[in-house]
């Protein structure tokens, strides 16, 4: 009786995981072992280790690293500031609000802002610098990506900072630590779990960004995500696309393990 009920409640979860997580992964792994003509092969994985693909993987990681780093540099102080204000819930909401808007809409908005006669260039001309090519550059790509990912970095850091017992900061000061030492030895170590969650939430999706690469970076930046998309939709080489996807999945798992939060001493 009890067992039956448990199975009943478990069913939606099992179905979901089976249909939308396990099956697709198995399919991707399966496809990755076939070439364009449907023959079993390991060539896709061999190709992955050629110079062209290694370079693409490296640049993917580099951009993901840049995006994550900028997100962290902006989000940590911002989260710190927000926890110190009176209206922290409101301010947090304002930061999070843009993430509710469709990604595509935001990308198009930036197309307008960064275009040759866009608001950004109008401003640059007004201050005397003159119009620049902003769209389709590395800068615009990283900028828009950071803009999109910031809420995902900020939220876990905010939560970690907000949970931090303020008496610990008093205690540190009381024991002779300056504000900076207190941050280094108490605040940062105790909010590291939030930083790790934020890095996970930004770095992993940033590796597989593809729409922004086309719209904002004009295909000048090729990430793993772009490569997968091209293989599936343009060259129809599903095998190669799957092999890259498998590589991406393995990378994600590794990152999850590396940044996994060790629960130590946090009550």
């Amino acid at each position: 009786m009890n067992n039956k009920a448990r199975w009943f409640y478990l069913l939606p979860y099992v179905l979901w995981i089976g249909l939308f997580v396990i099956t697709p992964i198995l399919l991707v792994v399966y496809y990755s072992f076939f070439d364009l003509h449907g023959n079993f092969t390991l060539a896709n994985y061999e190709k992955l280790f050629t110079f062209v693909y290694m370079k693409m993987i490296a640049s993917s990681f580099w951009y993901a690293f840049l995006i994550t780093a900028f997100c962290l540099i902006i989000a940590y102080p911002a989260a710190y500031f927000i926890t110190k204000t009176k209206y922290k819930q409101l301010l947090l909401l304002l930061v999070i609000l843009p993430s509710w808007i469709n990604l595509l809409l935001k990308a198009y908005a930036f197309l307008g802002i960064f275009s040759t006669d866009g608001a950004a260039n109008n401003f640059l001309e007004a201050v005397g610098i003159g119009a620049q090519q902003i769209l389709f550059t590395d800068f615009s790509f990283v900028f828009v990506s950071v803009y999109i990912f910031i809420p995902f970095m900020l939220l876990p850091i905010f939560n970690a900072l907000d949970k931090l017992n303020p008496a610990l900061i008093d205690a540190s000061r009381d024991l002779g630590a300056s504000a900076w030492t207190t941050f280094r030895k108490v605040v940062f170590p105790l909010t590291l779990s939030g930083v790790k969650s934020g890095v996970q939430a930004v770095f992993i999706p940033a590796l597989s960004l593809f729409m922004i690469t086309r719209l904002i970076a004009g295909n000048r930046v090729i990430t793993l995500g772009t490569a997968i998309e091209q293989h599936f939709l343009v060259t129809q080489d599903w095998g190669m696309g799957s092999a890259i996807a498998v590589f991406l999945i393995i990378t994600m798992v590794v990152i999850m393990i590396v940044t996994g939060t060790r629960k130590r001493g946090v009550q």
Partner: protein
Amino acid sequence: MTKEVIIRFDHVTKRYDNDAVVLDHVSFEIERGKFYTLLGPSGCGKTTILRLIAGFTEASEGDIYFNGKRMNNVPANKRQVNTVFQDYALFPHLNVYENVAFGLRIKKVKNSEIDRRVKEALRFVNLSGYEKREITEMSGGQRQRVAIARAIVNEPEVILLDEPLSALDLKLRTEMQYELRDLQKRLGITFIFVTHDQEEALAMSDEIFVLNQGKIQQSGTPTDIYDEPINRFVADFIGESNIVPGKMIRDFEVEFAGKVFECVDQGLNQNESVDIVIRPEDLEITSWNEGKIQVKVDSQLFRGVHYEMICYDEAQNEWLVHSTKKATVGEKIGLNFEPEAIHVMRLGETEEEFDKRLESYQEAGYEQ
């Protein structure tokens, strides 16, 4: 040993957001090597005083002196005081050893010296062998000791304790009271202890400051405060008491409950209205005829060491009596007391006036 003032508050006022006054022109002196208690109900300003000494908050007005030097603007990390926090505020990411070593590491003390002092501090609080434990593995009482060790290891001149026993159960709390008192004696460091528990204050302190609504109501030794409360608030807050309105007929004669009694107080105006305090344990049960006051027993509780009864006299004044003798509810009995048991409190008397009256006991009519 000569009396040496280590901390002095000079008309210190603290208010938040320009309206609520938390401390109202508070002045006092703290002498080196004594155990002080700041006692009062929640919101009386006792914790604010502690935070002002520690440097976590700034005074709105007035001066705070430490060893004769004004220290209003000295940041918390440059002050020679350490705090034991109410919730201990131990660092959850560090083990017991590193928690205690925190202050020494910041002062860049040599590793061998740190090791020696941390182990000594832990031995002092009976926690030798717990160095490698995580904070989460420690019980409430043990965390309390770690917090104390973390404070004393820095050898501060003053240790501030912010209701450190309030989270412990009764048995452990009593145990820690003895240990803290003992620790303070052994170390010879000045302790400033904040509590709302009057028994704790009476048991541990050399000197008590009773606070209410941002003002020090009375300061003195536990016996002084218990035996000679200055006003209704102190009498009520420290121990249990019977407070009834009365009138000072002349020196050594006071009227309350419709009768005139002999007392030991003098120096008040003739026919001045006063409050009378008699402690429940000073009232003795006797027969209706032999009693100084005649009352009817309204209810009775067995408290273990004594019976606690509530009685009413003819004027409907309530009398709380602690007696080892038993009475019957509804019975009419007499209450007896010594003249010394009557404590006369002037209405609205300040602490200075009160002290002056106690000291002089000669001239009358100097007030206002």
